[in-house]
């Protein structure tokens, strides 16, 4: 009951805070949203394909109930409305031959800004932008050689672009590829005959879920990724991301640097109560450089409670939700990864503690392993008394006297 009361108070406080502190999202961030989403899809696919087989499922959406929570800042002023993002993902594999696995994957994302927040009935007003990105592909894995090859396409479709945005093409198709050998992987995204982005990653950290070590110095090796983006007319941008286990694969530090400008993008301290990453807490610091003349740090954090995630100024949302800040975001979400029948959260190092483990402990408590004897039954044996037995005296049954009624 106390939990219930404090929880509802928390929800109410968050709702109040979300309305009181609100910063607008900009048309520039909304226009850039497609590229950000495509990049995030590939990054997530890279994380999920770390083992090359298994499965993944993801479903989620931001819940921003107030129209002045994330207003739109255009050149004319601040428009009231709703920024939204809905996402889903699935990845399944099947074993086709010994050590050979074939799989398919699909990532869907619909995001933008609209005058109303109906889920299936958009408003499409003069200042709306609604866009969806669909990434799909096939996966081939050889588990003996620890090798994975995946490729597919990304479709970016615009439902509606209002008059305050830069013009955008209805439909764009990109081709992507992903190759992994052991802990090293490479990704590329192409548009027509030109590359859009490349990512090289070294996941050196040993993870028990993929058959690695569950403790020891190998688990303290870093995960490093170098991403290159082909920016039109300018120098290609280079981003280095470093993820480091700090304590028992529960506490991690993550930092992303822009190598061209020699500056920090964001830094985060993440705490997972369990290495399976079902729950998570993070504190982040984002360096904002977009606004002219501003080079300030944005501090924030997020709490991931498996089915719901609360975030305030978190680095992930600042980048992936149109620079949303100054408001408490609630995201209804659920994702689960599986590998050889074990469940864990995306990027997790170990399997989630399952009910199986608890049972073993319970049995241990009752009977130690050394005693294999079956305990002697101390209860008195049950005595079965015969009832309804019919005694016959030689005369025919009909009309005959029976000693007990109720016999058949």
């Amino acid at each position, binding site marked *: 009951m106390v939990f219930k009361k404090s929880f509802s108070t928390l929800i109410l406080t968050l709702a109040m805070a979300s309305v009181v502190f609100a910063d607008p999202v900009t048309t520039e961030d909304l226009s850039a949203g497609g590229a950000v989403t495509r990049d995030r899809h590939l990054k997530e696919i890279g994380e999920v394909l770390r083992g090359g087989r298994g499965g993944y499922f993801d479903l989620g959406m931001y819940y921003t109930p107030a129209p002045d929570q994330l*207003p739109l800042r255009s*050149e004319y*002023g601040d*428009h009231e409305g709703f920024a939204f993002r809905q996402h889903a993902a699935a990845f399944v594999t099947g074993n086709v031959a010994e050590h050979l696995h074939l799989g398919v994957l699909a990532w869907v994302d619909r995001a933008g800004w609209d005058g109303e*927040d109906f889920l299936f009935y958009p408003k499409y007003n003069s200042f709306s932008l609604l866009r969806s990105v669909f990434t799909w592909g096939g996966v081939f894995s050889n588990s003996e050689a620890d090798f994975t090859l995946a490729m597919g396409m990304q479709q970016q479709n615009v439902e509606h672009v209002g008059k305050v945005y830069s013009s955008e093409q209805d439909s764009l198709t990109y081709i992507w590829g992903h190759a992994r050998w052991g802990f090293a992987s490479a990704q590329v995204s192409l548009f027509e005959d030109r590359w859009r982005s490349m990512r090289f990653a070294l996941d050196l950290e040993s993870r028990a879920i993929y058959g690695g070590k569950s403790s020891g110095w190998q688990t303290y090796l870093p995960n490093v990724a170098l991403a290159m983006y082909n920016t039109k007319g300018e120098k290609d941008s280079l981003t280095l991301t470093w993820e480091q286990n700090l304590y028992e694969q529960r506490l991690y530090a993550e930092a992303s640097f822009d190598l061209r400008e020699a500056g920090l993008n964001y830094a985060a301290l993440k705490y997972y109560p369990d290495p399976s990453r079902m729950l998570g807490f993070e504190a982040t610091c984002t360096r904002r450089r977009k606004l002219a003349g501003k080079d300030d740090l944005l501090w924030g954090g997020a709490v991931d409670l498996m089915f719901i995630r609360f975030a305030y100024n978190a680095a992930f949302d600042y980048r992936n939700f149109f620079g949303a800040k100054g408001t408490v975001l609630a995201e209804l979400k659920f994702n689960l990864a599986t590998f050889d029948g074990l469940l864990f959260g995306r990027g997790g190092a170990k399997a989630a503690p399952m009910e199986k483990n608890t049972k073993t402990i319970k049995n241990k408590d009752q009977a130690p392993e050394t005693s294999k004897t079956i305990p002697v039954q101390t209860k008195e044996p049950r005595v079965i008394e015969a009832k309804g037995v019919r005694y016959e005296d030689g005369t025919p049954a009909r009309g005959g006297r029976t000693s007990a009624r109720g016999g058949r």
Partner: protein
Amino acid sequence: MKKSFLYLAATLLCCVGLTGCLSHWFVETESRLQVENATEDCTLLSVDIFSMESDNYQRWIAETLLPGERSHVVQNDWVGKFTLRVNYTKSTDGSGETLQFVKKMEVEGGSLFLKVESEGDSLALKFR
């Protein structure tokens, strides 16, 4: 715990499914504007939403209003905080130099009635 979790999940699902319907009840997502020229010596030429960052503007009311006249009602998607611009002349027949009156205002949505009054040498805008 399991039951309370189910209740929470059901509540959240309702909130998500009906979020548009619920907000639609008390949130206006469009504005219907009518303008009255309440001045005695000015002619209003147009009412625009004006961009302070560039010279762009979006015309909202495109009628010439002589003193005492009211415009038609024009519906638009403007809800929020915007800069309104009124083009007017200091004459009762629309002749003479076009002047501009610019003011940042909160447009709340729904049916709006904008009264333009003269205030000294300039104008005053009031939503009523």
